[in-house]
């Protein structure tokens, strides 16, 4: 499965459009991590635990999107976009969406 956020696939031609596919996941922070981040917040800087958590969530969202694209018979997703929203205290939704296509 190939992913791009361009509208076309450089060097390949799109033979079929298979519609919008999306994947999302909602994760909350581990209490321990949250506590550590709270301590870290007195001194500022990167909160590595959160960076990792959101990266994992984003990979999960991408994997779900890819699964949808594959089910639709596609071999690539073009025009991929991401969005993150803070839906509840301590929980974030990460979403990935794009257009499933068949390229050759």
């Amino acid at each position, binding site marked *: 499965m190939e992913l791009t956020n361009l509208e076309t696939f450089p060097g390949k031609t799109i033979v079929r459009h298979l519609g919008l596919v999306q994947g999302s996941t909602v994760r909350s922070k581990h209490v321990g991590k949250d506590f550590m981040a709270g301590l870290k917040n007195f001194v500022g800087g990167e909160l590595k635990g959160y960076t990792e958590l959101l*990266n994992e969530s984003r990979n999960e969202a991408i994997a779900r999107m890819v699964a949808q694209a594959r089910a639709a018979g596609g071999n690539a997703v073009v025009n991929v976009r991401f969005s993150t929203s803070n839906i509840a205290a301590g929980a974030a939704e990460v979403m990935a969406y794009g257009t499933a296509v068949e390229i050759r």
Partner: protein
Amino acid sequence: MELLFQLGIISLLLLIGWSIGGATERRHFRSLVKREAQLRDILVFNERRPPQDQAFGQAALVMGSVVIGEDYFKRFAATLRSLFGGTLRMYESVMDRGRREAIVRMKAAARRQGATMVFNVRFETSSLSADAGQRSSVFSAEFIAYGTALKPR
């Protein structure tokens, strides 16, 4: 007596935030400048289409992200500043650091793929502050930068 004790704790936290937070920020800026220089040969564009007259090899989605938090001193200073409004300079540097870090990580991901250019770069920022309303809540922001890495043919 209790008031004095509380004031003591607050000023200690302010001092810690100001000294360690400030040092962390300066170190981060120095490291950004160094890594930006190393990755200067990776070209980044926000154009939606790569030039049609050039042939490219494989395309791949690349991404860089970072979560950055403010320090206690910045929060205190920003709260005071918000009484009068105006530019919150202490937060501007946090945003700047976050966004540059995300770009650097995206470029590093492009280099790992063997790419030399990244097209259609998009940015996104989201706030991760937990427990709205709670004074001690953690304010932090996530920055992501993503685009399509292209290899020259």
